[in-house]
């Protein structure tokens, strides 16, 4: 388990995250393409990932993101929390989100 996920678990769902400043992105063909200027690597998110990326353009807590996901896709909140944690962890590892622990 990564340090970020451990902090997520330790601090409950109040971690505030948003898309990193050093990434640029563009939406087309129903998804979003992202370039990390830091790592100079390209990423592509579609479907739920695209939806969550759009939400991350403003600072959100993990619980807010999970609620938004649950509402949008009519999913169980508990599953959404787990999915969002995993998603946030992978974005964090790639340097695509900034975090602010409250």
């Amino acid at each position: 388990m990564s340090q970020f996920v451990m902090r997520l678990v330790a601090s409950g769902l109040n971690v505030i995250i948003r898309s990193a400043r050093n990434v640029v992105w563009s939406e087309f063909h129903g998804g979003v393409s992202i370039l990390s200027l830091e790592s100079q690597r390209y990423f592509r998110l579609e479907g739920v990932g695209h939806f969550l990326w759009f939400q991350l353009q403003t600072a959100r807590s993990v619980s807010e993101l999970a609620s938004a996901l649950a509402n949008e896709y009519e999913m169980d909140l508990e599953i959404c929390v787990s999915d969002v944690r995993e998603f946030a962890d992978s974005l964090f590892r790639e340097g695509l989100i900034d975090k602010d622990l409250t």
Partner: protein
Amino acid sequence: MDPTIAVRDLLREYTLRRAPIDAELKGPTVKACLRTIHKNRLANVLLLNDQNETMINSYREAIWSTNSSALLTILHVLPVLENNQINYCIIKGPVLLEELYDDYFFRPATDVDILVQPSEFDRAAEHLREAGFALRPACKSIYWRFFLGEQHLDPMMPALSVIDLHRHVYHPAGLGAKEADAYFLQGVRRELNGKRFTVPSRIGQALLSVLYIVKSLMRSEPAGHYLLDFALILNGMSKDEYKNLVQEADQKNLLRALSLAVNIMQTISIAPDELRPLLAIHSFKTLSPYDIFEQLISPGTRNIKMGLYILRCATEVGDFKKGLVWEIGRKLAQGACHAGLF
């Protein structure tokens, strides 16, 4: 709907709202309208809908590929320019799109345009070669060096863009270019991923847009994107900035060129009251501002002569002659270059 009128309306609405337009184009000319919007690099002025979805998605995908490369190229060359204390300015491309549209991907930027002081041109080119860019053989000709005042440097690494290194921003009529170039170089500092760089000031950007509009007229290239840049810059200026813009244009021999651009702004109802005195500088005896606008949006629709453009942009009759001789010389040099004579 006539495509030129559709573009005119979109330009006006986007400038006033500063947000994409949910436009439902009507009539048998929908395809022609979309084609004209695309050719003028204005597709992102539209909100995505069923009518334009295919066009906009392909457009954005193409922009993604060119502009992300351009951004990586800028990050690659900034340390080269900064560490070697070269007086430079990035004059086009994604970093300027972000300034104006808050979007690095608003329209395609196929290369990275960098203006350097003429005395530092060779030194800048040498440092860029050391950084992995090779001078394109065709650019060694006098035509490129003297008439176009730019050189293309091809990247030796994948994923980077061509660098278009300029020694001047050519203005076909008059002697304004030299004075204007020095002014553009005194730009403002911005930051990308923690790296600082120089772009033209807002007034510099306005004057550059005017130059690009004139160039597009000369070359019969669609210029809707430059018109939108100019409209947005004008629309965001204060009264003092309007005054400074006129002063700078006057000092740099660009007053008639500015007047031409303001007249065109008038046709899309964007000309500010403060610049209305400029409207009279041009006397449109044979052409209306809308004729020029139409030529800029749909080049070739009317047979408007090149010399007339030069005349309309020149400050004095002497400048008109110089502009005309220059343009004829450029055409001859271009022909000689293509024939492999030098």
